[in-house]
């Protein structure tokens, strides 16, 4: 299969960030290799929305997402990608219950991916609070680390959180598993592992995507990548 076919079918080209024509967005959604598995038709029965947690709290309905995509109204689909679909909690209760064995949550995931890889406006706003997670996931492949649980970020988690963040290094040392006795990663990640992860991100366009949608974050990450590569390669 040609590189171009792989791109549209399995992953999007990060250099197409900015290509936001409604028809091409819908084409990208329907061209995803998973599309046929998540949508098999729709009875418009609303069973998915009836059991959807986000439907209870937001102006959001998985039935409407599925119906809109099936209607082929590309502009309406594009409008949804800006804000609407980000209400989904990704719980897949809808998939468990749909009589057509659809996965509206799976469809939403494809739509989110297209929204991000095409750099839609809402993405910058939506990703902002994600900076810390992204930095960790890109640099060491962990998504949450002990030093991220800070009272100023989680004031609503109550009075025990300051305990968790005080003397963190000692409290982590008191966890009786060697790999866990660290604070800036969830477990000790070997440099070789990060090194391999960077190749995966490079080969799958993830680094290039971050460069396009969050240049500041990319700068930090690329410095780390370069340092680690130098260290590993010079030790060979």
């Amino acid at each position: 299969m040609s590189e171009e076919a792989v791109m549209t079918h399995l992953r999007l080209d990060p250099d197409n960030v900015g290509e936001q024509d409604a028809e091409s967005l819908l084409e990208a959604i329907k061209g995803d290799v998973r599309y046929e598995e998540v949508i098999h038709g729709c009875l418009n029965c609303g069973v998915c929305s009836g059991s959807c947690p986000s439907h209870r709290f937001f102006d959001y309905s998985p039935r409407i997402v599925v119906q809109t995509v099936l209607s082929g109204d590309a502009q309406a689909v594009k409008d949804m990608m800006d804000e609407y679909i980000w209400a989904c909690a990704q719980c897949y209760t809808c998939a468990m219950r749909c009589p057509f064995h659809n996965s509206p949550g799976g469809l939403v995931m494809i739509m989110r991916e297209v929204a991000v890889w095409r750099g839609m406006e809402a993405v910058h706003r939506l990703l902002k609070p994600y900076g810390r997670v992204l930095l960790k996931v890109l640099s060491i492949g962990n998504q949450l680390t002990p030093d991220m649980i800070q009272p100023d970020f989680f004031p609503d988690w109550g009075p025990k959180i300051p305990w968790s963040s005080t003397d963190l290094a000692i409290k982590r040392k008191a966890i009786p598993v060697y790999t866990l006795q660290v604070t800036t990663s969830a477990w000790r990640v070997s440099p070789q592992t990060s090194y391999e992860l960077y190749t995966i991100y490079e080969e799958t366009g993830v680094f290039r995507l971050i460069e396009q949608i969050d240049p500041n974050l990319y700068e930090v990450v690329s410095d780390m990548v370069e340092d680690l590569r130098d260290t590993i390669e010079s030790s060979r």
Partner: protein
Amino acid sequence: MATSPISDKVRTSGWEFITKTVDKRAIMKAAPKDPREELAELEAKGEVKVIHITEENRPIEVETLLGRTKRIPTNKLWHHKSCGQCGNIPGYPTSIMWFMNKLGLEFLDETHQTSCTAWNYHGSGTSNLVALASVAVRNWHRAYETGYFPLIHCGTSFGNYKEMRNLLIEHKDLRDEVRRIMAKVGRELVIPEEIVHYSEWLHVLRHQIAALKIHDLSSIITTVHPACHVWKLVPEDVIYDPNIYGGQRPAPTTAILLALGAQVADYSTWYDCCGFGFRHILTEREFSRSFSLERKIKVMVEEANSDVAITQDTGCTTTLDKNQWIGKAHGYNYELPVMADVQFAALAAGADPYKVVQIQWHTSGWEKLLDKMGVDWRTSKAEYEAYLEELKAGREPEQLYVPPVENLNLH
């Protein structure tokens, strides 16, 4: 009177159609192909390598939703840790390892692992199928080269890896792409024979684990929160047992609580998610708080009079535990302890509540529960505080487990 354009007959048959097919067992009428059979075919053709479950893994057979057999390895396991657990609920993985030591089982916990990266993917979309599959295969291959079988701690990793396994089996172009990337990092495309979650491991060993119990749990009322990504993603792979809710709900977690002699109380929103939402826990916190309180904690307490909410995954434990305190601002004065099944089992079996179960990181009051279970947490707390002082003074930490030197590779 105007007549409806839809006749009553059509309405009735439409409703019948829905009620018949919405039943979760509807999947049985159109059972998807067994990916494991297809995997065996690919292996026979030399298309992929398979990480097999061997005699050394001492597998135990169980039945899944479609009546298919799943083999759960119990020994010689490679810990695929969860970043949310290790980072925020450290007593989760330590309790698993504590039981493995108690049962004399062999395992490997090391530094050459990444998370599945799927929490970030579900929340932000900043990855893609090829990257997720490559991350999965890199971890699987690492387990493969050590000779240990991967045991997945996190529910999202478990769900994601089942999806990745199925997609890799179905799509040759995905396999080719992942194989190309693996070659660049000196690895090969390997796929495990089964994707196994720790709650399944706990489930098949529940009677051996229950035999270690030293506290009477007969007065403890538990409520179970089954984790969405454990049982709603690739649902046909989930363990069901006719003795647990008549085979209508997943068996793991509920079954071990019953084996331990605790009460398991039903509640009407058992199937709802916890409110974690992947991005919501960070960016739509109002939703996470409201949903977890209104649809889970309140119902568990008011309908079931629950003493403790028992979980089987990472994000749920965090969401249900951490969002209770703020509820007081709106008159939700619940204080329901939240912990994973394996932590609860470890407490029942006499594990140190501070040093092993690391209960001190949980924010919703657990003290009354531990008193009711007969666990002396006050002595444990005093010992832990003294231990922290000793560590500050330079003492070497106690270890349940240290990886072999060759698996450290910190350089």
